[in-house]
């Protein structure tokens, strides 16, 4: 099939799949697919949030006590890190679109680094919780607490941040893949669908953290 | 053909419904009859129409011309609007009945119902406790206040046309006024594990005098073995242990006492004596009889008094 792609041909130049009319057709279709996938992410995390709201409504004191065990400084720091990473992710798309792939590489690297920093901070947070026995459910063995079912708060804490952290790790893995392809010269201003897709995924990760931060650390 | 007979016989409650235990059941049956007939008529129209069209417009030749009819707004409005009206009528009617079901008079006789795997316990205001068979007076509003110890159960009295899930950690309620004396089945309708289908109870509706007399009854004057027999059904041993030698979830009690070479999982053989029975009742999972499942029987330590254990063992001894 013809490539609807006027850019220079290298071995890795993207060829429009045979069942699409042209490159634009492929792009809009892929993008819609990505958006549909993002909807499922929202609904999946959303279910967890709904559960959180109902339980929070039932046990406000318990949740407040749980939140007091978290360090809001770490949460705030991680929020800043994720916002910056979201920005650099958006920039890497911007640079590929404007033909500056080397800058995009730097931005992708920064994004991965931010993800890594986020996970390191998360690691230290988790470590502190483990040391204090602030673990979910059956594993909870902290001393000095008042709410009888404080274990539930940490159940939520670990489920929500754990699922979110898994997404961060997946996102980082995808970005390493993007980085490799970008260095190989796969992307140009006409073809950057994978970058766009991973970008949207990464923004979802940011979006969820934007809500998790006040929910778990501030309001409690 | 009991079911079909019930369906055909005009004397019975029609439409295969159980007997009517309350006035509300009669109202229920009226609504059901209405919907049933409306359904029969709509089925007759649609299925009849289908068959009529299918036969009338059967293909004659391979070049039949068909009418090109794309739509008819008036007809389409009609067959959206008429069902909607019917649906709204039955919705409102059902709502009325539901409201009555969920209204509990202040002067109701309150009975606490406690569901657990796989039996029902009932506690009366007087402190009287019974299991799997409870008694209510006729013509008196009754309110059941229900909760569960373990998983969700559901309390269902078909003749009263009422049902309510019994949820652990909270109370739910059922209310009714029985109109006729007699025995009524109670089912558990929320799947609750192994013996879900044996989680039955009987509701005895008796006259007010009999009810008062029953309330005064107590265990005095019964032999130890007789008391054990009451506990056998009361503590739901009956769900898993037969008295006639048939194999249920657990071993039968028939001829159990004194049995020699009673083999356990792991090969241990012992003679069934008072100590073994006592341990098997109180710490049920300490020894498991060979080929029977472990961890099924609840632990009764702290649930039974010393005297009750004795009564049960005496009852087992009496089963030769």
């Amino acid at each position, binding site marked *: 099939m013809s490539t609807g792609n006027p850019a220079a041909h290298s071995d890795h130049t993207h060829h429009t799949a045979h069942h699409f009319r042209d490159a634009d057709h492929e792009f809009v279709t892929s993008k819609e697919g990505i958006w549909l996938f993002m909807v499922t992410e929202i609904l999946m995390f959303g279910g967890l949030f709904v559960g959180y709201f109902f339980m929070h409504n*039932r046990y406000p004191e318990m949740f407040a006590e749980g939140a007091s065990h978290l360090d809001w400084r770490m949460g705030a720091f991680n929020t800043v890190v994720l916002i910056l990473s979201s920005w650099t992710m958006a920039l890497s798309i911007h640079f590929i679109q404007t033909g500056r792939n080397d800058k995009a590489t730097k931005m992708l690297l920064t994004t991965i680094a931010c993800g890594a920093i986020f996970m390191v901070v998360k690691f230290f947070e988790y470590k502190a919780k483990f040391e204090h026995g602030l673990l979910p459910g059956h594993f909870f063995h902290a001393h000095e607490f008042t709410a009888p079912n404080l274990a539930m708060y940490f159940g939520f804490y670990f*489920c929500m941040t754990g699922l979110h952290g898994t997404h961060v790790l997946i996102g980082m893995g995808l970005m390493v893949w993007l980085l490799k392809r970008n260095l190989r010269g796969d992307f140009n201003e006409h073809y950057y669908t994978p970058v766009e897709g991973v970008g949207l995924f990464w923004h979802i990760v940011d979006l969820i953290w934007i809500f998790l931060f006040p929910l778990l650390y501030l309001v409690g | 053909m009991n079911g079909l007979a019930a369906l055909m016989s005009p004397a019975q409650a029609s439409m*295969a419904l159980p007997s009517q235990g309350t006035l509300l059941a009669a109202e229920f049956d009226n609504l059901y009859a209405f919907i049933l007939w409306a359904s029969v008529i709509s089925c007759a129209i649609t299925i009849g129409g289908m068959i009529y069209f299918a036969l009338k417009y059967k293909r004659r030749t391979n070049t039949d011309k068909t009418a090109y009819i794309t739509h008819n707004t008036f007809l389409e409005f009609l067959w959206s609007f008429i069902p909607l009206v019917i649906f709204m009528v039955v919705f409102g009617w059902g*709502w009325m009945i539901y409201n009555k079901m969920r209204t509990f008079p202040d002067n109701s006789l309150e009975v606490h119902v406690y569901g657990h795997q796989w039996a029902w316990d009932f506690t009366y205001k007087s402190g009287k406790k019974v299991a799997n068979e409870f008694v209510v007076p006729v013509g008196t509003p009754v309110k059941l206040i229900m909760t569960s110890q373990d998983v969700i159960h559901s309390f269902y009295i078909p003749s009263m046309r009422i049902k309510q899930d019994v949820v652990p950690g909270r109370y739910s309620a059922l209310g009714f006024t029985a109109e006729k004396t007699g025995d009524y089945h109670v089912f558990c309708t929320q799947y609750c594990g192994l013996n879900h*289908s044996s989680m039955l109870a009987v509701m005895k509706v008796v006259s007010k005098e009999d009810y008062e007399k029953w309330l005064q009854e107590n265990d005095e004057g019964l032999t130890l073995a007789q008391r054990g027999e009451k506990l056998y059904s009361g503590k739901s041993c009956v769900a898993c242990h037969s008295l006639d030698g048939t194999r249920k979830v657990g071993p039968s009690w028939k001829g159990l006492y004194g049995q020699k070479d009673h083999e356990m999982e792991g090969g241990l053989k012992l003679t069934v004596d008072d100590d073994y029975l006592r341990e098997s009742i109180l710490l049920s999972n300490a020894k498991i009889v060979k080929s029977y499942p472990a961890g099924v029987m609840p632990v009764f330590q702290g649930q039974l008094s010393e005297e009750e254990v004795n009564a049960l063992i005496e009852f087992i001894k009496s089963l030769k």
Partner: protein
Amino acid sequence: MAAHGSNYINAEKGLASWFTTLDHKRIGLMYMISVLTFFLCGGIAALLIRGELWTPGNTLFDATVYNQVMTYHGAIMVFMVIIPGIPAILGNFLLPLHIGAKDVAFPRLNLASWYVFMTGAFLAISTLFTNKIDTGWTFYTPYSLKTSTAVVSMVFAAFIMGMSSILTGLNFIATVHKMRAPGMTMLRMPLFVWGIYSTAILQVLATPVLGITLLLIAAERLLGVGIFDPALGGDPVLFQHFFWFYSHPAVYIMILPAMGIISELITAFSRKTIFGYTAIAFSSLGIAAVSFFVWGHHMFVSGQSEVAGIIFSFLTMLVGVPTAIKMFNWLATLYKGSIQFRSPMLYAFGFLFLFVIGGVTGIMLAVIGLDVHFHDTYFVIAHFHYVMVGGTLMALMGGFYYWLPKMFGKMYNEFWARLSFVFIFVGFNVTFFPQFILGSMGMPRRYYGYLPAYQSLNQISTVGSWLIAIGFLISLYTIIQCLMSGAPAPANPWGAKTLEWTIPSPPPHDNFDVEPIVTAGPYEYR
């Protein structure tokens, strides 16, 4: 236009070419083989259930085994047969053909979703060799948290199969939006596509919530978080909300594509344009939308608040209207048609017959005052089998017979196909009609033992299940015979008007040698 030369079946050779294929038609066939295998498993479980219920006590096995068989019957039939059934088999095969596309939007994703589905399915089946699960397919808490069986493996299996369902759904939505041939406007799409499209929307919007719910069950069991566990301060009724938020729309995931098939069958075998195309198309979307806020009718006696129950009862009535519209429009399509009694059409008649009964009993159950009595009795069992088996399975069978010539380029034996219909249809009614009576008499569902008074009706029902089994065996024979020695099928054996009949049977690898340009609707029988 005989089937000569290259087609999608012989375009590539060898087993490996099937496992790496990106062709939507081949993937459809792979789904067909897997789903039919699972259908056989679920069917055997059904026969075992009915066999055990021959007597009130122990007939074939004890309560432990009964509860497991009942659970696997439900889980297999729901997650592995009916939900993937029509969309993944016929949807995959037909959607691109129907809209004049070369393939679905994301062929690789399509293959991936088959692998994901099979992974989940094997995990589900593998629990049979461990601690067999006994919760019922609904996984109600707290029982599913207390039982010692393989709940975690099973919920992960269902989670994985849910992911597959999501991927299929989003693929189909993008396909419908973006891959239509020139001139194929939304309102020129066949109604089967509308059914699949509405289904896909449900798959994408509802399944993620099931995903998180199942993950939470796993978390409850592994960690003891306590959201759904009353012993830890959770709310088991909240679980039911989460569960039915998915599982009620899932009912429409099962039935909407079936309704699409019926529209195709009725027009083709009446050789007449569909009555009220727009009404049927939009009623699919309407049903899909409304299905998201009626789930509470599964919970009328669960202990949810009475206000919620009444509102859910009211909203449920609204689903009845678009369903009634479809029903009457199909009838009106028959009017002044030229009706041919080929076996697919017999299945369509069977569908209409059974679906009306399933529908009106659905209304009975939606009336809150009546449901209090019928809830969790055999009445409910009978109702949803009338809709799921009498509806979905009838349509699936009709669809199979309708498109078999297109799929394999061979005609089947009409006599055997009709005989199979007779057995399935009669057997179905013999099996499930008595269950309405049992239900009104008060026999609860999921009962291993029952009152002796219920025995005769149960025995009638069991005999019916054997008739159904014979019917499906005849169908199996018919299909095998068709594949082995069927006469070659012409491109358009039925004289139908949708696009798939304009290309040879079986279709070539790329579907359309020349991209079709659509100038009219799908049912232009003038």
